[in-house]
């Protein structure tokens, strides 16, 4: 479980996050939704310790990370998996080396055990026979799956995803969403996903935080979205004709 309370983050004089509070629950897919520029990525980077909030606290199962140095966060970071928007795979390494990398850096397994683990993770994300391909040789959807395999290879307690299905076709996007939800349930991870894709919200939104202009405007589950009367949320979620029709029918 990750608990954040009154997080304020500013860049120069511009306040991007304004007293955001929320609890990301373990074993659930926690979604952070909001328009582009609403502060989702900044919030995610604060959770990852890449940005230091001006005030507030971020608590990972009893460990407060605000104000901690990189050295003090090292232990925690080994329990974190991250899927970046573009995958952030290392260009100079092939698929196998990318997934193997965290194991080489932090595990004490033998080479055979490491390779077994890599193959297991690649199989788990439905990727086989691609071990020796480089990131430039695989599709966007495959890159995302390799990134997920790399993120889970160390059995993390916390999984963060920044718009994991952006730029993907609806079919592949749904595959990725389902995969993330399955993995979350299977390993009992605390998963935080940044998205503005409404399909993802309705598909896997077990706990949702809606941010608008840096403020926590609404929180609930995907079922609550339909019945919510929050004007900001309604304007955001039901902006497309398809979702308006769904709402009318429901």
């Amino acid at each position, binding site marked *: 479980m990750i608990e954040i309370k009154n997080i304020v983050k500013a860049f120069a004089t511009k306040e991007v996050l304004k007293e955001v509070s929320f609890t990301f629950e373990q074993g659930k897919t926690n979604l952070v939704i909001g328009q582009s520029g609403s502060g989702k990525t900044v919030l995610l980077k604060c959770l990852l310790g890449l940005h230091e909030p001006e005030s507030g606290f971020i608590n990972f199962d009893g460990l407060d990370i605000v104000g901690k140095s990189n050295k003090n966060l090292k232990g925690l970071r*080994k329990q974190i998996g991250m899927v970046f928007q573009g995958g*952030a795979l290392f260009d100079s390494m092939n698929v196998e080396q990318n997934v193997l990398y965290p194991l080489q850096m932090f595990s004490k397994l033998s080479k055979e055990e490491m390779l077994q683990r890599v193959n297991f993770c690649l199989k788990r994300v439905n990727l086989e026979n691609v071990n020796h391909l480089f990131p430039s040789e695989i599709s966007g959807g495959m890159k995302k799956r390799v990134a997920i395999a790399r993120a889970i290879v160390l059995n993390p307690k916390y999984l963060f995803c920044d718009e994991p299905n952006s730029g993907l076709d609806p079919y592949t996007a749904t595959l990725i969403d389902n995969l993330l939800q399955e993995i979350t349930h299977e390993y009992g991870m605390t998963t935080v996903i940044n998205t503005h894709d409404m399909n993802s919200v309705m598909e896997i939104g077990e706990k949702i935080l809606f941010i608008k202009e840096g403020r926590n405007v609404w929180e609930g589950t995907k079922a609550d979205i339909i019945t919510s009367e929050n004007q900001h949320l309604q304007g955001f979620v039901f902006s497309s004709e398809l979702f308006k029709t769904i709402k009318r029918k429901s």
Partner: protein
Amino acid sequence: MPSKPGQSQELTTAHELISKEASNVKTRNVVFFVAFKLISVLKIGYLLIVVVNLHLILYKTHAMGLIASFGKYLLFIADVFRKPERRSVMYKLVVKEVYELGFKSVLFVVFVSLFVGAVVTLQTAANMEGSWMPRYLIGYATRDAILLEFSPTIISLLLAGKIGSNIASSLGTMRVTEQIDALEVMGVNPVTYLVRPKIFALMFFNPLLICMSMFGGVIGGWISGTLSGECTSAEFISGIQYDFVPFKAVYAIIKTILFAFIIASVSSFHGFFTKGGALEVGRSSTRAVVFSSVFIIVSNYILTQLLLN
């Protein structure tokens, strides 16, 4: 005793011939002197470039910004020397960088050195044409020009362009595609992991590269000198052995190690802190080459003062 009219005319002609010859010798000596002092002149040239560059930098950026950047650079360098996560991984990375940054530059360096050595020899020979100076001095001048200035400094400047832009653009791309963030999130110190191997690899391999350049330059000079008939092979070889002071080679190697550190660290610094997109990667790459070159030129002057004078 009054001279005969014919005798007086002969004396005038002889006097004119002597003056003409004296003037020719004087001109040749001046030309030779200028060529021989090329290195000193280059130093003044460097100083001018430094002054112009510093002026431009100060004009374009705020002085405080420069000081802040320098402080950031020092902290960055301090980070480079932190303990790495896995030593075994670090050794492999150093070997990889030696191949990528050093070994892949061998052909380029040797090719350039061969031709520059050849040109230096031909120019020195042209300046000595018809003078009283012994021909073995062609080899001597070529050796000193290559050893003292061309190989350590000019090749380092060329490498600042080739390797420096490579380092800055690769790190810049890693930054804008969030690969560096990925390392940070994993708990890997990206400076230690990405920059340290490059610095170590260049500081180890550049002296070897420069030695190859020195040999290449001298061999180029020997080939051009003997093929053009400006000097015999024996004269050239005698020239490159004449008055050889081993400290000059040590001085060149010391310079090379420092320049390798400058190229790797300054380029990495600019690449590592790239912000934005593809356009910024290009700008970082340019900045890396400009700043590396400026630092090389300034430190070359300082080191020469400290070590040779």
